[in-house]
């Protein structure tokens, strides 16, 4: 389409001719509900396939374990909220930064448990062996939340590509980490920091990088 040499009338005429009834974006709460539903089903199915940890029912009696799951869920929820909010032009508001609160709480919770162990046993003893299976687990569990939020965001018109990419990836990765909590039987805080928490940030940063390729419209 050679736009430059066209008169304004001709150009607008083409757009008017293309005017069909459009499918409006669903309300934010409905998009969030769809996303949560798909993410929970995805984690349920994939978690069953990968195998839940043997002491899962026992772990639900631990306040710390449940608190960690809640914090991860809130992180994932508010990141998805931000992603869905900013994919509509002109909708940026304070609410899109709520994800920072659960993120800080999560960091504090882990570091408070980690630092005494670090002081007692030293860095190598605390971090332990390589557990790439945990990284693989997060990636597998994050696939469905990621695809769901990706398509819901793509349906909008992203005007902050990097931020949207970061939020989509962070919400999916946090959901993956939440699922992994219920799969991985290792409770060492060093292991948790390196093999559960770091991949979440890694995936989120990857989202920033990949966003420029997938958010064009």
């Amino acid at each position: 389409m050679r736009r430059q040499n066209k008169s304004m009338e001709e150009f607008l005429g083409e757009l008017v001719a293309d005017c069909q009834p459009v499918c409006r974006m669903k309300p934010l709460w409905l998009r969030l509900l769809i996303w949560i539903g798909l993410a929970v089903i995805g984690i349920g199915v994939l978690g069953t396939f990968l195998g839940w940890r043997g002491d899962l029912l026992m772990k639900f009696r631990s306040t710390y374990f449940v608190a960690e799951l809640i914090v991860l869920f809130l992180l994932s929820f508010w990141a998805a909220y931000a992603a869905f909010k900013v994919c509509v032009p002109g909708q940026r508001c304070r609410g899109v930064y709520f994800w920072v609160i659960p993120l800080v709480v999560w960091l504090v919770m882990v570091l408070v448990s980690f630092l005494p162990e670090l002081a007692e046993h030293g860095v190598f003893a605390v971090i332990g062996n390589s557990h790439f299976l945990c990284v693989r687990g997060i990636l597998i569990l994050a696939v469905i939340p990621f695809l769901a939020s990706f398509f819901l965001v793509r349906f909008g018109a992203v005007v902050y590509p990097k931020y949207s990419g970061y939020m989509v990836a962070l919400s999916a990765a946090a959901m993956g980490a939440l699922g992994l909590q219920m799969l991985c039987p290792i409770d060492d805080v060093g292991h948790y920091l390196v093999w559960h928490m770091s991949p979440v940030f890694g995936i989120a940063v990857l989202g920033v990088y990949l966003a420029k390729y997938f958010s064009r419209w």
Partner: protein
Amino acid sequence: MSIKIYGQVDEAELSALLVSAQDGDRRAYETFLGELYRILERYLWRRVSDKSVLPDVVQEIVVGVHKARHTYDPTQRVFPWLMAIARYKTIDYWKRRKRDRNFFTHDEEILLRQPAPGDEVELADNQWLLEEYLDVLPQKQRDLVSMVKLEGHSVRYAAEFFGMTESNVKTTVHRAIKKMRERSHATTK
């Protein structure tokens, strides 16, 4: 609440037109786009220093609004929605323009550099040389070099015009410049 944009267009009216357009009302959409075009021209006039690109930027934004019209929520104000798209598309336009200009090497830029104004003899010589260099190219390459490097159109625009991909245009123009450079070296020897 009814707000006049630039003292002329009623925001509530503009919103109503867009909502009708979302339902497929072409007449409402035509009126909306006409108003939008005028708003954007006025909005960008003070913000874009190079006035020659103004029609391009306005058209980019209008196309953006057309593509994103399904995202407008009738319960929200239309002006912040429009301006967010305008801002994004304007920045995108400049980034792309900068990127398109940066893909040639320094040598290639020198080869195609225009002479200083007022230097008629050199201008005539260069014009003649340029035509000679362009003659070594096949028609397609010649058209692409003329469009992208001499007329100053963007790679994206050339790709749309010739029905090619952007990377294909870049490669073709790159090869054409290489051929022209070889011709230039042969002439100077």
